[in-house]
């Protein structure tokens, strides 16, 4: 079942504008979460919308949520492509994967959403991106490795580092 929003056709400028009005800012915020730069996030959003308008006719959506998730994925991919262009990920050194986390509190699971959002925005870019992909957007490590052009081990190690970093930040915040 195709969502009703596309009844007018993707090439219809009015339909496009309506979709942009409804979802534009949300998708911009998603892009901003990754890029942390207003201009870059706006550019990624516009590129994502062009891609959405071009390919949406070939998609079938059983539910509106799936349609939204699909759009979000496109924006994320667009943002990741921009990050890849900056070659930030190639500079990351591959570290051994911390496979055992026994006895370690899952700090992330204990955080509230607002706390997480605030702390995540303050993370270094490498940590932030992987954490957002894995935790917030439901990417697997295989997806992250593919999307960022890094190895599976790098994705896992970066996520563990991000967790540890968040834990330290939380302790600091609690002590204050």
């Amino acid at each position, binding site marked *: 079942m195709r969502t009703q929003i596309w009844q007018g056709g993707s090439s219809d400028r009015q339909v496009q504008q309506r979709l942009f009005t409804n979802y534009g800012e949300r998708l*911009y915020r998603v892009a901003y979460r990754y890029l942390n730069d207003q201009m870059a996030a706006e550019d990624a959003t516009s590129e994502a919308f062009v891609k959405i308008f071009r390919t949406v006719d070939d998609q079938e959506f059983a539910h509106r949520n799936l349609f939204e998730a699909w759009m979000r994925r496109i924006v994320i991919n667009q943002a990741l492509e921009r990050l890849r262009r900056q070659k930030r990920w190639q500079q990351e050194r591959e570290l051994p994967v911390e496979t055992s986390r026994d006895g370690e509190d899952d700090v992330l699971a204990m955080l509230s959403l607002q706390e997480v959002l605030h702390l995540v925005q303050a993370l270094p870019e490498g940590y932030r991106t992987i954490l957002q992909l894995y935790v917030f957007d439901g990417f697997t490590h295989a997806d992250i490795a593919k999307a960022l052009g890094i190895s599976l081990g790098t994705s896992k190690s970066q996520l563990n580092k991000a967790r540890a970093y968040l834990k330290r930040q939380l302790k600091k915040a609690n002590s204050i």
Partner: protein
Amino acid sequence: MKRLQEHEPYPTELWDQTEAPTWSAERVWRQIEEQQTSPRRRAWWLLWGCSGALLLGGFLVWNQSDSPTSIETQVEQVFEMPHQGLAPDIREQRPVDERLDVPETVVPKATQPKPLPLQKLTPVPPAAMTIPEDTVARMITLPIAQEQLPEVTPVAPLIHSFELLPESVVALPADTRTGTKLKLRIPEIPAAEARQGAFAKRLWQQYKRLNMEGEIDWVQLGVQPNGDGTFSILPPASKASSKPN
């Protein structure tokens, strides 16, 4: 308060809670429109270019000389049609003579243009055209036997070696006693050249070419050998005193 579980996707209804600076929706929409229209415009131009190239290529193929549909072939066919009885022959059928035999158009005298007045030209007197001998060249008279005259006839080498003009060689009337005398007109020779042995050598060669017997009369030539291979130009008085006859 909702707690996030590990690897639980971020709820879409909470996207708006992400902290981000206010965005410029107009700028983003403008970018979207530009990105959507630019490729279309490029595609249109590409389409037009391809169409033009195809049309041009088609025309060139169609217009090949050996093609039955080419312009050249069709023009030939049009000219051949009268011969084949497929079209009236509108070309001139009369013979060339008839076509040329057109009566002359008589123009009334009143309308005829008047002839231009003739301008009389005064001829230049021959005396004015002659150049005084003494101012231009020296005269040399060489005695040559009548039977030797044909050998003198090819005067061209003589003229060229002396750098003379053709009219400088003048054959005098035949003398029954001494034979024909050839009169040469030699230009003024620069003193520097006259003193060189080259001049005597060239002169000697010319005498030999004339097949003349006897010694060279240097005085006749207006040149005095100094004995050491050099020559001096004689003053006109000495030359005049040594003239034969």
